[in-house]
């Protein structure tokens, strides 16, 4: 019972919710990318690889330039570049999008370590100083609010950016003509094409956006949360983001709720010393919860109708 009491007490601390939000944002960025890509009809299981690519090139750039903003830009672009391979292969060449996604993940894992070995030998990549990391941003005044100050106004700069992007993606997808077009292309591409919408351009844009967002997540991971690159450092986060996207029924805010739930699990573990559950068992939770959602126990989760279908102009 004391363990339960400790957890309840923990749930009332600002530290926990501060950590939850940060952990959730790390998942939210690639999840938003997944939402955009799949809403346009391109299945994307490659966020893991795009995020890893961003993490690696962000660290390389930061070590070389000692400018965290340029390094973040490099990370974002690297993620976008990786995504453009997925775009070309699956939109232009109409390859199976799942195979292409798997290939991206294998390619990113192989390429990053290959380049680590090439540039830094078999040793460590090297660690970045505090001044080369993405900084925390405290809002003067607001950050002194009890509880809320710590949770919402003493966070890493990427957290604020991600929350803005969350609103932005929601508004664009559901309140603008562009969003309507993206969704039309994902639901019924030939009808959209007939209506004069360029299916290919929209899908390219959506897939590359998912890479840019995943690249930013990679930067947050490697040069924000951590200060170096370690092989395979994303450790399945891109797949948890995929889970969050499905959990959230392909909507930005739904995905965010899922990310918060997954992030809370991570934060509870990191911030408590009384419950002794294996961290490895806790790490299963996002995947198990998603399986439960998929089993239809908490309502169906249905993807866009043309998700995964390559579009051939003039077909059907």
């Amino acid at each position, binding site marked *: 019972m004391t363990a339960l009491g400790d957890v309840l007490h923990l749930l009332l601390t600002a530290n926990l919710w501060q950590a939850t939000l940060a952990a959730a944002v790390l998942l939210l960025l690639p999840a938003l990318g997944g939402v955009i890509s799949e809403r346009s009809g391109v299945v994307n299981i490659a966020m893991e690889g795009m995020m890893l690519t961003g993490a690696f090139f962000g660290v390389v750039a930061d070590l070389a330039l000692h400018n965290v903003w340029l390094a973040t830009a490099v990370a974002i672009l690297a993620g976008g570049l990786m995504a453009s391979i997925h775009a070309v292969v699956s939109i232009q060449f109409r390859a199976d999008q799942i195979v292409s996604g*798997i290939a991206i993940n*294998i390619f990113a894992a192989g390429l990053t370590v290959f380049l680590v070995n*090439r540039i830094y030998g078999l040793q460590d990549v090297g660690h970045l100083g505090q001044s080369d990391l993405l900084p925390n941003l405290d809002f003067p005044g607001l950050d002194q609010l009890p509880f809320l100050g710590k949770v919402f106004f003493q966070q890493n700069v990427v957290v604020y950016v991600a929350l803005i992007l969350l609103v932005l993606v929601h508004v664009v997808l559901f309140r603008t003509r562009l969003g309507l077009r993206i969704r039309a292309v994902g639901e019924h591409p030939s009808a959209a094409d007939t209506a004069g919408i360029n299916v290919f351009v929209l899908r390219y844009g959506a897939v590359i956006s998912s890479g840019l967002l995943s690249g930013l997540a990679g930067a947050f991971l490697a040069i924000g949360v951590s200060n170096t690159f370690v092989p395979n450092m994303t450790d399945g986060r891109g797949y948890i983001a995929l889970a969050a996207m499905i959990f959230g029924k392909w909507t930005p805010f739904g995905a965010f709720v899922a990310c918060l739930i997954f992030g809370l699990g991570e934060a509870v573990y990191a911030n408590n010393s009384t419950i002794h559950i294996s961290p490895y068992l806790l790490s299963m939770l996002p995947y198990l919860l998603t399986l439960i959602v998929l089993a239809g126990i908490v309502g169906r989760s249905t993807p866009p109708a043309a998700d995964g*279908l390559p579009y051939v102009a003039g077909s059907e």
Partner: protein
Amino acid sequence: MPLGSVVLAFVIGAVIVTVTGDNPFTAYAGLLCGGLGIACTEGENPALQISTTIVYLIPLITTGVAVALPFRAGLFNIGAEGQMLAGMIACTTIGVVFKDLPAVILLPMVLVAGMAAGAFWAGIAGLLKATVGAHEVVTTIMLNYVAQWLLRFLIIGGPLQLRSGTSKSLTIGQGAWLARVLPNDNNLDILGLPASVYRVHTGLLLALAAAAIFAFLLWRTSLGYEIRAVGQSQKAARYAGVSVRRTIIVTMLIAGAFSGLAGAIQIAGVDHNLTDIYFTDTTGFDAIAVALLGLGSAVGIVLAAVLFGALHAGGAVMQADAGISGNLVFILQALILFSIAANFVGQIRRLIPGLGGAPAALPPEAPPAGPMMTEAAAPPPQTP
């Protein structure tokens, strides 16, 4: 066509090696020696290299079959990795708990336990697909990670841990060990090395048998007919009286049993315990490349497994001898996947007249992928 994809991948790989400042010929010579024991210059023992390659290719054949069979039913099993880990866990658990039983009982027991666990793992995905339509790609990805974290839990602080501070499990009883091809003897000299370094084991026969069973099942049984019918068209199969749901579940169960067998063979034949090397294992993903490259046929799968087994074995030698990162192998593997999936070779042939490419206006149409969760994923080329 698959051969062309491999060649194209190696050409692009050579470009990547060159651009990053190494000699591609040195790299590929290292791969050739490490993978096939050919053209070794640094005093590597060719026989040992071949032995290592065979050890690598055994699980690739079995998991390759586990991906190829659902392909025929229009199902994309990305979960061979998780199913294999489930098989490893079950095999080790039984092998540890009943470690004193004689081999005649224990060995079949651990193999069957592995198959059952793999079948259970894949069966979850099959059941969810058949009942609520949950896409098997997504569910098998989730199940992969559940298995991976379960493995970490079990051998780090969990009930199978050897002792605190280690990240490996207890060792399975000797009765559960698959025999090696050569005696595990330090004094017996085979081709200049002690016989004990050659780890080739009799699991190879089981893997080849799995490939043969796969082919027999697919082409000589009514279940195989049903699997292929469902893969061609669920609607048509339904009109022909085939229960699509039942076929989906049974297909996934059998595929999982193959993957689970791969895991059990690996533990019984090579490791004899669970270790942290399987935290980052990629066999189940390599299996996808094996199944695609092997065009879903038993012979093709064995040949593709030889290629990827040789690549993985060769990567280590290339890194040691030529100083080029063994991760080049993963780059090559990804390039092969891109190349097969996008049919680059076909596109190139179309662009260059006189290469035998048909002057068709459109590239050969890939089988249409169904929308997620309602229809099946893209089946592989329907070549027997």
